[in-house]
Structure formats: structure tokens, C-alpha cells
């Protein structure tokens, strides 16, 4: 079973989370449900710092033994930091997707976009519907 989805952040329909630091910067990662679907993550490709991304565009890549998946940016903005630990220890995403397994920090270009994302409850509702 997936870990509960923390209330302190918002979610995309593509299974990414975005946590607002309150200073115009959000931390982005994939949900525990996503890591569980991917299973054994063996490689994470992170973007260069300074890269500009639009909401819904690929911002990172995660690979399991069997598959290659894009991580879509849940917000628009500029990448200001990446979690370089994942380059040597990609399994951290499996172990702690909501914490140490974060992927990028993005300086928001449009703070209003956060309101278009799902709350933890809405995300869970979406997962339930997907399973049916």
C-alpha cells in the first residue's frame, strides 16, 4: 500500500507533487503511488539548473529496470536546484518519494498555477477512480 499523501502540498494528475515553500519556490517530486507503480527505480535524469519549464512539460526522467518515464513539471518556472543525491542513489525515490526523494526546486513564474492542482483528498479520489 502507498503511503498517505501529505496535506501540505498539491498534486498533478500525472502523479507529481509540488510543495510551496511560501517564498515563490516549490519543491517537486513524484508521489508514493508513482514510485510504487514504477517499482525498482535505477536511474534518475535531472535537468540543468537554470532550465525554464512550462507546466506539463518533462522536467526529469525516471527509469526502472524495465521502463523509462518522464516526470512532468506540475508548474511553470525556472529550475533553481536539483537533488543530486538521486544521481548516485536513485532508490531514494522508492524509499522516500515525499521527502528525501524530491527531484527539483522551481521558482514559480505564475503562483496561480498552484491553485489549478489537486489537493491530497482530490488526488486520492482520482486514484480510486483510476483503479475502477
Amino acid at each position, binding site marked *: 500500500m502507498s503511503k498517505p499523501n501529505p496535506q501540505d502540498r498539491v498534486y498533478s494528475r500525472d502523479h507529481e507533487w509540488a510543495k510551496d515553500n511560501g517564498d515563490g519556490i516549490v519543491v517537486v517530486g513524484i508521489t508514493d503511488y508513482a514510485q510504487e507503480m514504477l517499482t525498482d527505480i535505477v536511474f534518475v535524469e535531472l535537468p540543468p539548473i537554470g532550465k525554464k519549464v512550462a507546466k506539463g512539460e518533462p522536467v526529469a526522467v525516471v527509469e526502472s529496470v524495465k521502463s523509462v518515464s518522464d516526470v512532468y513539471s506540475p508548474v511553470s518556472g525556472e529550475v533553481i536546484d536539483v537533488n543530486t543525491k538521486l*544521481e548516485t542513489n536513485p532508490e531514494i525515490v522508492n524509499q522516500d518519494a515525499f521527502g528525501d526523494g524530491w527531484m527539483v526546486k522551481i521558482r514559480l513564474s505564475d503562483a496561480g498555477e498552484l491553485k489549478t492542482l489537486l489537493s491530497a483528498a482530490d488526488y486520492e479520489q482520482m486514484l480510486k477512480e483510476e483503479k475502477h
Partner: protein
Amino acid sequence: MKKTPLYEKHIVLNAKIIDFGGWAMPVQYTNVIEEHRATRGFAGLFDICHMGEIEVKGPQALDLLQLVLTRNLAEQTIGQVKLSTLLNEEGGIIDDLTVYKMANDSYMLVTNAAPKDRDWAWINQIQQEKKFDCSLKDISDKTGKLDLQGPRSEEILQKFTETDLKTLRFYHFCESRVTGFPAIISRSGYTGEDGFEIYTTADVIGNIWDSLIHAGEHSGLKPAGLGARDTLRLEAGMMLNGQDMNESVSPLEVPYSWIVDMNKDFIGKAAVLARKNSGKGNKLVGIEVTGRGIARHEYKVFHRGKEIGVVTSGTFSPTLNKAIGMAFVDIDFSAPDIQVEIAVRDAMVPAKIVKLPFYKRSK
């Protein structure tokens, strides 16, 4: 999608099911790395019911097989298994299959799942042209097959058969019983480990599956899916039909020259020779990624900026903890240690040509 007789078992075990050559097959039960390591360290049990089985029987069964297959089967003994390729007229590989000699005029061919119907049609066509005194029968639907692979396989299987498995040599089989049901036990497999391929009738394969799963629990046995099967065979340097080879590839371009006997006549021989004598062509090689990234099927391979080939299989190796693969490259760039680059999305990632296999078990 077609379902194997074990499909419901996979559902109960919560397996992730994929379409593999038209079959609904388990790709993983828990995760690929776990199932891979269980097989290398203890034992893995694989549903292989999707593969095809064709019987060839009659006084001229051997004559037909000698003509359609590249391997020389003249010296094959009863109870021995031989790997061979089946070629088209142009010398391309239709399938790589194993030949079981059941009796002097009786053989069983074990084919890959996807090309089975193609194999069947092609061998029948040749049989009708040449009119050898033998008959062919597709017994795939009524046959069930399990692969039990890994160092603990013998100890686990021994509990369910009266055959002394110690006396069964590699690439040999016997007609025996498993959990009381008639079965063929073959010491062979597709993982690079010791292990067995077990053939029985489709209606009892579920009983054998349950017995092995249950008895194997304390020996570290796990059910293993096609994901682990793929990483295991790739580490062991074994090719996958339809991916590392296809009908446009000659057996001399891949590591199969050892199963092609140029001293006998076989379908496709002239074309194979002509291609060889042209001195051109490609070669299937091992690759190891030395930079950051994982080579995957169909990624392009370059040498100093010039495209020289394509990755046919690529994955992260759970045993070696690095990215490995096979690539089909221009023969001029196929020697071990040649530095190449692989186009991984936007990046050119350094890699090198290496000898196969990547993994060899200690005896």
C-alpha cells in the same frame, strides 16, 4: 490476448500483466530486481506456457530437421537437447529453437511464442514440397511449461521426482514424473543458472506450479516474471528472438555461428554464405555504458559522431549494478574495447564494446 493455464495464479499473486507476443504474461510479481536476485541466489519459477511445442515423428523426421535447421543433428543422442536456428531462404533467422530427441524417429521442437505459427507454416511448407516420410503436430495448446532456475533448483525439484537429478547432465532431459504427473525434465534454461525446464500437460501444470511454490518458500524460491527473465538472459549473453535478431539477420552476424554447420545442406545456406563472403555486414556485440544513462532497445549507436548501429537490448544489470546491453553494429566497429556513444534522449553517453556474456555462474 491469450492466457496460459497459470493466468489465474498470476492474478492471485498480484502480478503486473503485459502483452507479450499476444500473450497475457506476468512481467513482475513484486519487482524485477528482487525476482532477478532470487533466481541468481536461490531459485525463480517462471510460467513459460506461452512457448510453442511441435512434434516431428516418422522414419524421415531427422531428414526434415537436417534440412530446415542449421545445426547438425546427426550425432544427437536420445535424451539430448540441441539449440538451433531456423532460417528463411534469404538466410535470415525465423526462430531459434531447441530440439529434443525423444526417440530415433521422434523429436520435439520448442519454439519461441511469437514466431511459433510462422515456424509451423514454414516447416510444413518444406515438408509438403519434399514429402519426407514423417508427420508434424502442433502440441503447444495441450503442453504446459515451467522453468525452475537458480542454484537451489535441484534441491527443490528433487522432492517431487524419483529421477535422480544429479545424474541429469546440462542440456539433457528425461521423461519422468513430477508430483506424480508425467513430465519431461530438461536441465537447461534461459537465465545463466543451473535449472530445469519442465514440460507436462496443460491441465496439470497448475498442480506442479503450486507444489513448487509451496515447497520452495523455505529455499528462497520466488515466482519470477518476464522482466527478470529478460535481465537474467541478457546478463548471461543470451539473445531474444524478435529483438536481438529477426528475419533480416544472418546467424553468422550474431553469436550463433556455433550452431550453423556449413558441412551439411540446409535451407538458407547459400544466402548465409553469400552474405559472409561479401565481407560486409553487421555484428551483434555486448555493450557496457561507461557514462551516465541506460541504453535501451532502438537507441542509436555512434562512433566519433558517425552512426554505426542500434541497441537491440538494454537494461540496468541487477547483478553488476551497471547499464549493459547488446547492439547490432557495423562489423568494422565490433571489436571489444572500442569506445562508442549511445544517443540517450538529448545526450551522447559514452559506452564500450565488450565480450559476451556479462555474467557467468561459478560452477
